């Protein structure tokens, strides 16, 4: 069988997404295909290196904590009344956390707040158009 068929499966194997029969089929192929076996080994090494790198703790730049604290000093106290824009944004963030995201066709998802924002903007446009229409109707009304 064509190696490209198995190459596609190597990543899914590493991610633990293959079923029992697919694993057996892949292992059968690897037993005689040195190229695919090498690709599996090297991809596994890359994944191992990345996972190990994730356990490293990078040193923050000198003075970082002081710069954060200077920015924090300019903030209102946590939980105190916030500017309207940020309060609305925080409320929508919380809504996102509670409701999650809205699935779209094709596997995409979008945050609830984007849908609400688009809905509010559309409603504002419709109201504005309707008001203009009514105003013109009044202006054209025969005396």
């Amino acid at each position, binding site marked *: 069988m064509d190696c490209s068929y198995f190459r596609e499966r190597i990543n899914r194997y590493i991610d633990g997404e293959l079923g029992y029969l697919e694993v057996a089929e892949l292992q059968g192929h690897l037993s005689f295909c040195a190229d695919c076996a090498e*690709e599996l080994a090297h991809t596994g090494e890359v994944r191992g290196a990345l996972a190990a790198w994730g356990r490293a703790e990078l040193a923050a*730049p000198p003075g*970082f904590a002081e710069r954060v604290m200077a920015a924090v000093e300019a903030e209102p106290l946590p939980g105190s009344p916030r500017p309207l824009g940020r309060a609305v944004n925080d409320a929508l963030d919380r809504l996102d956390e509670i409701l999650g995201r809205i699935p779209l066709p094709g596997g995409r998802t979008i945050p609830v707040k984007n849908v609400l924002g688009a809905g509010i903007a559309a409603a504002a446009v419709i109201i504005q158009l309707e008001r203009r229409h009514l105003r013109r109707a009044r202006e054209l009304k025969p005396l």
Partner: protein
Amino acid sequence: MSTSNLHKWALLPDPTPSELSRATAGDAEAFKLIVERYQGMVYSVAYNVLGNFTDAEDAAQEAFLRCYRKLPQYRSEATFSTWLFRLALSSTIDYQRREKRRPDPVETPELVDGTAPQLGEGISAATLTAALHDLPEDYRVPTVLRDIYGLPYQEIADLTGRPLGTVKVMVHRGRASLRLRLRAERED
């Protein structure tokens, strides 16, 4: 393996309830203790996702400001470090979407003493960070989230707003690019 690095950060000692309530009440010294304890974790997340020092510092600072504002919302169902880790990830992804990233030369970050990892034969921190730096952003971000931080594919799709299938393809291509790059480094 998939969540190993979330568990690693969860091992950091949480602030005590007293420290947390003081920080939530606006005590700057109490919040500074939190910043000093977790700055390595937050900066590491920002650097690995964004791939350059300047943006990483800005994004890490934003993550701590968001943490400060959201402290009253923290509930102890999750450990504080796990809560902050996820907040740092989402804050960094928001930054990455919003800001046009600045070009930056490849520089190997400094590690906190005693955290130098064994990356494997012939792979150094310098070669790995250079290889990650050179990945197209579309590949790097999902690959970092999947293979450095062990996030499930669905969570990466939600965070990045991309279809699940696209995220998988990007991670597979990111791994392939890294594999070829690291193999070339070894052979040089």
